[in-house]
């Protein structure tokens, strides 16, 4: 496809469940980002990949969050033992990876933890 694809679009999880969110970046994009967007807030950085290497995970809020991109394309953000404060929209973005190149965003996954 032409854009960044995220699935599922909506996810409802009971507190304590594990969830996995998928991101298909634009073909050929080297850089991949995950952001968390709470209601009424801007996107907050979670983690960044260059190809398969996770170069920055400083934004992950706890050790319940981890992300992977094993083949340098599709990425998965996993949240273990979900908590209510994890409820947010999780955005994936990709870019060419060259200095300052803009990010292309997916539609996001809206996670609701009940």
């Amino acid at each position, binding site marked *: 496809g032409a*854009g*960044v694809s995220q699935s599922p679009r909506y996810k409802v999880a009971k507190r304590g469940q594990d969830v996995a969110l998928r991101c298909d970046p634009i073909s050929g994009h080297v*850089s991949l*980002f995950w*952001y968390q967007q709470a209601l*009424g*807030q*801007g*996107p*907050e*950085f979670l983690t*960044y990949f*260059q190809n398969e290497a996770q*170069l*920055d995970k400083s934004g992950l809020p706890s050790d319940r969050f981890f992300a992977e991109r094993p083949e340098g394309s599709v990425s998965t953000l996993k949240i273990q033992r979900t908590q209510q404060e994890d409820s947010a929209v999780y*955005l994936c*973005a990709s*870019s060419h*990876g*060259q*200095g*300052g*190149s*803009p*990010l*292309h*965003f*997916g*539609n*996001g996954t809206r996670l609701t933890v009940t």
Partner: protein
Amino acid sequence: AQSVSQHNHHVILSEAASLELGCNYSYGGTVNLFWYVQYPGQHLQLLLKYFSGDPLVKGIKGFEAEFIKSKFSFNLRKPSVQWSDTAEYFCAVTGSYNNNDMRFGAGTRLTVKP
């Protein structure tokens, strides 16, 4: 650490009114600056970007932004808004030589009344 501040949380205008949304940033180096827009139900889209050169940048749909280095500002403007400009607007900053540290402001919600 870099940060972005957007002064207005919610702006309400009538059609044909002029628009200016404030954005100030903090970053220890040369920067690239962006404005993204999120229309209701859609993903974040790039509106315009500043890399270097002319500090007055023109984007899509009649929007422009001016980079004032001495004020660490990158305000977004449009001379005459339309109802279709109703959306959320996000300012973002990243370093000039990499984009793995893109940070966003909290966003400004613009409502244009017909």
